[in-house]
């Protein structure tokens, strides 16, 4: 490894260490001053110290930018002139962007449903399974892998060899060829490619659904389950009549959490296909508009559309929770 690498790392390391020390020293100093201040002074000082930093960061770094983005979404490319709803009209009428919206809807429907169904099934099957822990661990593992890492893993799975005389190195293509079928360049064929990309996110999110739903199942009292068995209920009936109704609210939470996560994912599309071959989604198009084409108006409009898509889901979630509280 060349000395150039160390020439870059050394000052970076210095910045890292100094920053951490400054941060620690600042906090230590503030506590020292705070604890020694007079009682009257502490009355207001404690708000400044404990609430001040987080409050200021959220105000300047989240609330102000969010409002500014909403304003920008009504402005032109550079954000100088007011253009009314033009960016939104663009988003809903341009054929290219309509494909993007359509794909996003497909993602948002398929990902939560598939992840939740598979997660629910595995959670139910491993609920009282002996040594089920490692099974769950393996299914949960993709949660720790980045979307970029997952995309590399799956690109390798989908890899395609055009020359029939050379062996396939992608597992999917190899199985396909093993079945005697003609090779396909998976990621180039819409609408199949979008489904193949969705599988990557389902692979990641299933473990999440399984863990949350599994924990909810553990909370069902034993006697309820035993009573159902005493009645001679079959496995399926017990699941649909006892287990599922009792964890319904958790199922809703899991579905909505995955839906929101799905709306925001852009890494998978960006890494797997770059949004080409009709696989683009809103989150990725927002990135290309704002950061590739430096079109702040249209990029901002897409970000606002993402935000507006999230609001009713959260609203529904909160309402569900409130209904449940009053039922209890």
């Amino acid at each position, binding site marked *: *490894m060349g000395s150039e690498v160390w020439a*870059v*790392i050394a000052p970076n390391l210095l*910045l*890292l260490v100094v920053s*951490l020390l400054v*941060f620690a020293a600042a906090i230590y100093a503030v506590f020292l001053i705070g604890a020694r201040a007079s009682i009257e002074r502490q009355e207001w000082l*404690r*708000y400044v*110290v404990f*609430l001040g*930093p987080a*409050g200021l*960061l959220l105000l300047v770094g989240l*609330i102000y*930018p*969010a409002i500014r*983005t909403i304003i920008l979404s009504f402005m032109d490319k550079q954000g100088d002139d007011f253009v009314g709803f033009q960016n939104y009209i663009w988003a809903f009428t341009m054929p290219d962007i309509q494909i993007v919206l359509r794909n996003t809807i497909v993602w948002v429907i398929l990902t939560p449903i598939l992840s939740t169904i598979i997660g629910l099934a595995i959670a139910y099957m491993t609920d009282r*399974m002996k040594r*089920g822990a490692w*099974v769950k661990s*393996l*299914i949960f*593992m993709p949660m*720790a*892998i*980045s979307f*970029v*890492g997952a*995309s*590399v*893993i799956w690109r390798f799975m989908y890899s395609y060899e055009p020359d029939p005389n*050379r*062996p396939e*190195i992608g*597992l999917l293509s190899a199985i396909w060829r093993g079945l005697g079928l003609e090779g396909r360049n998976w990621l180039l064929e819409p609408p199949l490619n979008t489904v193949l990309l969705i599988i990557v996110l389902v692979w990641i999110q299933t473990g999440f659904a399984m*863990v*949350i739903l599994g*924990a909810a199942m553990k909370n069902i*009292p034993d006697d309820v389950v*035993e*009573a*159902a*068995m*005493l009645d001679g209920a079959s*496995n399926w009936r017990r699941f649909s009549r006892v287990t599922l109704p*009792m964890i319904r609210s*958790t199922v809703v*939470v899991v579905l909505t959490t995955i839906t929101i996560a799905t709306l*925001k994912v852009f*890494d998978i599309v960006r*890494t797997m296909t*770059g949004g080409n071959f009709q696989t683009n989604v809103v*989150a990725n198009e927002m990135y290309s508009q*704002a*950061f590739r084409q430096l079109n702040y108006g249209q990029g901002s409009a897409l970000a*606002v559309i*993402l935000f507006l898509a*999230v*609001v009713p889901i959260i609203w529904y979630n909160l309402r569900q929770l409130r209904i449940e509280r009053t039922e209890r």
Partner: protein
Amino acid sequence: MTAVSSVGLSEPQKKKAKDIFSSPVASAIAIVVAILWTIPTFGLLVSSIRPERDINTSGWWTFFANPSFSLENYERVLFVGSTINPPLFQYFFNSLAVTIPAVIFPITLATFAAYALAWFEFKGRDFLFFTIFALQIIPLQLALVPLLQLFARGLVVGGVTIIPDLGISGTYIPIWIAHTIFGLPLAIFLLHNFLRQIPRELIEAGRVDGANWFSLFTRIVLPLSIPAIASFLIFQFLWVWNDLLVGLTFGAGSKEVAPMTVRLAEMVGTRGSGWETLTAGAFVSIIVPLIVFFALQRYFVRGLLAGSVKG
């Protein structure tokens, strides 16, 4: 559901009940799914330790019939750079340098805020807490462009400079601050819920003993909140380490501060990178979170449960 509670089952019946649950068919399906879920990652790992020629001319599964082993891919991707791109080792360091402060800063500030929101009594406290809770729904994308401009040009309103251009673009600092801001709402929410559960008597006893709000925090609140902090720590670690969007945008396109995810995504896009570098590179980037995940899975699950049972 109360109508069916408390039914006695005899011991043999209970045993039978257990048998149905742990039916071999269900277990077999679960095991098959677990294997299916692991194959893609396993294939990547196997490929990464094969010689370049073998990776590109035969499927990774042939490794078992025809084992050939080499660490050359790792050596090359980690330590050998090109004229344009530094070796992955530099990005690995960047990932660490980005992640450590981007985990410590938000957790510290969130614990402070959660303490104030849980135990200070002031007007508008509930409103403030609800506002922070609601901020969780703001997608990162909604704050991205203006926040970036803030770092690049400072904040000027009506000709008055409120925040000057600090000249920190192209260093780690914008990435740290961005991660801190985006991590705060969830962190404050989770830690607040936890800190509320500290018995009131404990806080009041501390007050009577003459502890002020500052020493109360260091002596009583902080030691008690270590488990909650640990849960969130893993959360934030995985989030920051695996993040692409913040690294890509707030890193100002600088190779000197870009984390590994950015480089990996770039490698996928370039024609020059074959599977030998991609598989090894991907494995280097996922190994750290995998170790953290398997070592601290219990805390991670606890955090996940606390986070998704909102309300």
